[in-house]
């Protein structure tokens, strides 16, 4: 059923720290995506915006904000929020309307302007909000959660800080030729090792920055794309799953896992279940994947994702990395865009940015970072408060 929806155009505003209103990045990305598809803004029947929570009311109603900025054309509108998974949820809304036959052309846009430094909760005293409490009572920043996962890989699987640095070196190399990446500079393992420790064992260069950016995707029904003769990729899956009780991996912004006393944990962790759902929906498996864009909030987390998306068994990610399998030219390149290591995170845009990269790869237009013969790409990402996000595209 999901084969009935097509990706016909993608666009991005380059990532950076530009300090401009988020809508300017969103409009830039939207216009680029429309131009890419050969469609006009007047053809768009539905706009779905990814909400940003750091830019006031305009950010809360992002869909309408983008629609107004592009010029009111009477299109239907929706706004989605799922933290880092926002883009996938916005895409899912658009896909559902197309599958329901309610529209043929939808524009999905996400953009953000982010503050410098650690992401912190909004101001005010909120004793019932775990995202506020974790800072107040524990001083538990986002990198501290990433560091827990990193340390566990070291103590359980024998990962080393050199492995983590190798992920950064790889992704920096991948992003060198990406015109939309914020950081386009080779990084050496020595430079990673010389950067200050933020949350042991992770150093500054192991952790992604926060960035401004915008990304957009144009979806149509497959029939519409055919009737207009528009080159289209197949949107094979958009998995926006929530966890299954009991969730046994400690996650931002929680203080504890779910208890395993009343119900025994299932075979898959929440992160495993995200890609699992996407593969099932797509009718594909890890063996079909030509490339993956995964959420490398930290270098070590990229290694977790190798296992979560089924590229290898738990504990084997370091071997995969060391063998060069996930490097451009290897068996299944991961983060050929350069990943968050080269982009930094622009929350409501990031899951869409992953989709943009997969699209360019499948169209053979990823100049300087092309995965040769790419036919299937998967994205994976997880948003705060139980938001899975995995998108599968194929030629």
């Amino acid at each position, binding site marked *: 059923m999901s084969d009935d929806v097509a990706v016909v155009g993608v666009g991005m505003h380059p990532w950076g720290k530009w300090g401009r209103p988020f809508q300017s990045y969103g409009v830039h990305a939207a216009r680029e995506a429309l131009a890419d598809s050969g469609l006009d803004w007047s053809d768009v029947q539905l706009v779905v915006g990814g909400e940003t929570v750091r830019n006031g009311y305009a950010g809360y109603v992002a869909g309408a904000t983008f629609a107004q900025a592009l010029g009111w054309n009477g299109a239907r509108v929706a706004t989605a929020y799922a933290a880092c998974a926002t883009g996938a949820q916005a895409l899912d809304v658009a896909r559902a309307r197309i599958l329901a036959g309610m529209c043929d052309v939808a524009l999905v846009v996400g953009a953000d302007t982010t503050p410098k430094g650690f992401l912190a909760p909004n101001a005010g005293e909120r004793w019932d909000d775990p995202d506020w*409490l974790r800072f107040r009572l524990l001083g538990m920043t986002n990198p501290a959660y990433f560091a827990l996962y*990193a*340390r566990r890989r070291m103590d359980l699987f024998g990962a080393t800080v050199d492995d983590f640095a190798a992920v950064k070196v790889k992704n920096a190399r991948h992003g060198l030729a990406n015109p939309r990446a914020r950081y386009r500079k080779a990084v050496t393992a020595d430079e990673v090792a010389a950067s200050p420790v933020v949350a042991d064992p992770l150093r500054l260069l192991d952790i992604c920055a926060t960035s401004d950016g915008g990304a957009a995707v144009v979806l149509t029904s497959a029939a519409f794309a055919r009737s207009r003769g528009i080159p289209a990729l197949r949107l094979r899956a958009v998995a926006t799953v929530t966890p299954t009780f009991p969730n046994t991996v*400690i996650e931002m912004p929680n203080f*504890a*896992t*779910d*208890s395993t*006393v*009343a119900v025994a944990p299932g075979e898959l962790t929440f992160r495993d279940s995200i890609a699992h759902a996407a593969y099932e929906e797509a009718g594909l498996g890890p063996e079909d994947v030509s490339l993956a864009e995964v959420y490398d909030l930290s270098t070590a987390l990229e290694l977790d994702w190798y296992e979560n998306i089924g590229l290898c068994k738990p504990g084997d990610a370091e071997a995969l990395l060391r063998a060069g399998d996930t490097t451009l030219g290897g068996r299944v390149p991961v983060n050929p865009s350069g990943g968050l290591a080269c982009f930094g995170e622009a929350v409501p845009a990031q899951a869409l940015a992953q989709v943009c990269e997969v699209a360019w790869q499948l169209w053979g237009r990823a100049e300087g970072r092309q995965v040769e013969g790419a036919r299937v790409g998967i994205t994976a990402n997880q948003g705060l408060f139980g938001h899975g996000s995995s998108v599968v595209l194929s030629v």
Partner: protein
Amino acid sequence: MFFPREEAFCRNPGCAGEAFDEVALSRRGRVWSYTDARYQPPPPYVPVSDPYEPFALAAVSLEAEGLVVLGQVATGFGVADLKVGDEVELVVEPLYTDDDGTVRTTWRWRPV
């Protein structure tokens, strides 16, 4: 069983109950993982020293409850004192002092 205590709904999809009992959690557990905060966290974290002094954090697995619970690590201990699987015990220590002079305490994990 939930931490912090749950007062609204049970997350188990097979349980529609909305009444909760207060139970004491185990005071001992094993380290699931650990890290530290080398830079001062942003507000609403309340700084306790000037200049800032890093502190360690641990996620601790409680066997009887089947829970992993986060906490700061007791004063005087750092990441060098910890390994995944090590036993730790709960201690209560001051967290910060309110503007009116009230000392707020918190749970922390201390290596045994």
